[in-house]
């Protein structure tokens, strides 16, 4: 039987005792039509006493019951005495199921109000401050653990280190190689556009190799490692936090930083400098393609000019820079992971935050190195 048929009728004198008979279905499908109809009928009749005859209702759900309760409350509000007639057991059952107090009860906590602009700035500042404190605190803990591990090499989980070396280094090589190859290509091409005007194409290789070895090689490798592995570390540790695996490590007597973070950081320290060297190499090869095919340089000339421009000092400082960046990227990735408290969304936020923070640190550290090196040279 369809639940969308209903009929209403009123009997009684206008201004007197009115009986409202509802028949058919009083349910979710019908109440939206029923309500205005009842309103019109009652407004016409203007009852001094109202009785709802439920005898012909063949289907009532909680929406229909709510409608009746609203009727009752409205009558009470207008000080019109209200009564039900012919309430079957089934109808009674549903009516008692509804908690009338719930409709008017106050919520335990107030609605979330939208906070104003200045409040938001304040909140963001406080969050940033708290965040910086957490990072510094973790940084301190990490430093202690790195020192401990360097003096207690047997305590390091070397099998894990090797697994991460593969994930960060070997698996990352294709993308590092491809992107730096294209970068070298672009740099060589763009610089040659200007230098061509002065017949100074010979300077393209040295410009490229110096730029890569000193600055861009370490930065590109670091950025790609941050995106690939910094996020992965945050997601891995964050998910372990959600699964109580980090708590389990603590109760079993392990130090989670030593167990989970150290292998990742040691792996990064060993592998990022190598990735940097490959970045330099692939970029120079990219430049070589331009040099040979567009700038009429021979392979020998190109390579010789590239090597001439860089010194051992350049290479050593670029390696040192890589190691520092590796520690920062892996460190912030792990720190974000450890900060996860909630569920999937928290892990997602931590992952994003790990990459963003790492990128920020990369640029900041690179600037510091640039300043330092300018004083040394």
């Amino acid at each position, binding site marked *: 039987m369809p639940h969308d048929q209903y009929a209403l009728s009123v009997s009684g004198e206008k201004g007197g005792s009115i009986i409202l008979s509802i028949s058919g279905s009083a349910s979710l499908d019908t109440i939206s039509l029923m309500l205005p109809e009842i309103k019109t009928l009652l407004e016409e009749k203007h009852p001094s006493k109202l009785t709802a005859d439920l005898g012909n209702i063949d289907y009532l759900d909680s929406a229909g019951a709510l409608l009746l309760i609203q009727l009752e409350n409205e009558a009470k509000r207008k000080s019109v005495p209200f009564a039900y007639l012919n309430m079957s057991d089934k109808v009674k059952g549903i009516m008692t199921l509804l908690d009338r107090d719930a409709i008017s009860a106050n919520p335990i906590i107030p609605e979330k109000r939208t906070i104003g602009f200045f409040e938001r700035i304040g909140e963001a500042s406080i969050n940033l401050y708290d965040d910086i404190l957490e990072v510094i605190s973790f940084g301190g803990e990490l430093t202690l653990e790195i020192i401990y591990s360097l003096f207690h090499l047997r305590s390091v989980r070397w099998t894990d280190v090797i697994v991460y070396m593969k994930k960060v280094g070997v698996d990352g090589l294709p993308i590092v190689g491809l992107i730096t190859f294209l970068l070298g290509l672009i740099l060589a091409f763009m610089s040659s556009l200007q230098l061509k005007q002065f017949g100074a194409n010979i300077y393209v290789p040295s410009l490229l190799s110096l730029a890569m070895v000193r600055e861009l090689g370490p930065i590109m490798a670091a950025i790609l490692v941050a995106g690939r592995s910094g996020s992965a570390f945050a997601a891995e540790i964050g998910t*372990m936090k959600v*699964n*109580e*695996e980090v*708590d*389990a490590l*603590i*109760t*079993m*007597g*392990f130090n989670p930083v030593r167990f989970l973070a150290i292998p990742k950081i040691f792996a990064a320290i060993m592998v990022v400098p190598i990735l940097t060297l490959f970045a330099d190499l692939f970029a120079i090869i990219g430049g070589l393609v331009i040099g040979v095919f567009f700038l009429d340089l021979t392979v020998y000339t190109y390579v010789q000019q590239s090597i001439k421009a860089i010194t051992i000092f350049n290479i050593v400082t670029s390696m040192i820079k890589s190691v520092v960046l590796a520690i920062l990227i892996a460190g912030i990735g792990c720190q974000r992971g450890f900060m996860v408290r909630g569920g999937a969304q928290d892990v997602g936020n931590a992952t994003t935050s790990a990459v963003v923070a790492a990128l920020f640190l990369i640029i900041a550290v690179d600037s510091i190195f640039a300043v330092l090196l300018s004083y040394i040279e």
Partner: protein
Amino acid sequence: MDNTELRTPNSDPIITVENLTARFGDETVLENVSFEIYRGEIFIILGGSGCGKSTLLKHMIGLHELASGRVIINGIDITSADDNEMVKLRRSMGMLFQSSALFGSMTLYENVALPLMEFTRLPLKIIDPIVKTKLGMVGLSGYENHLPSELSGGMKKRAGIARAMALDPTVLFFDEPSAGLDPVTSAELDMLIRNLNKGIGTTMVIVTHELESIFSVAHRIIMLDKSKKGIIAEGDPRELKEHSENPRVTNFFNRKATH
């Protein structure tokens, strides 16, 4: 529910909780909770939702810092112990987490072997049979090479127990062991708990609210209450069910709805 099977515990406290207060930010969850757990007994912490039983457990094993009070396990006060003492203490305790918390990237073998390899100098050819017997004890013999993701909920819990028992701890903690398990698996877990207690004499501290388990395994219980932020009942659950004067206690054990 034949209780003659339960091992009679010693009357020597292995865990003492003194005036424990637990706070999260501004909210005090537990206030001045004190009780003792005796060596060899199966002790259950129970109560309604939100009463703080998991919180109490996590404070007892040192996962959270106490706002005030002391917890003394095997003679060591966890609130004042240094790192070395804590590590030593942790080796004498085992915990089964609600989600079993098995390390997802390791096989069952590696999970159970981890504490053995880390904290003992035993060679692999001794660790190997230890791991296999622990898995056998919980009915998971042959599952050494399975990953946690390849197991059912009940199997994961049992694997978690095997790992918690790897170093033959003197105390085992369980956080809602029957959560999410069907009645048969839950009963099998109860039987495992009883057998381990009877056979090895390990003290067991269990947080649960599954009545069947409680009546089946408990020597003694404490009941926590949210409004009191502490203990409202202590003792033998069967006694409390019949004779407690506190209606909240009898309602709980007799599974009576309050409205």
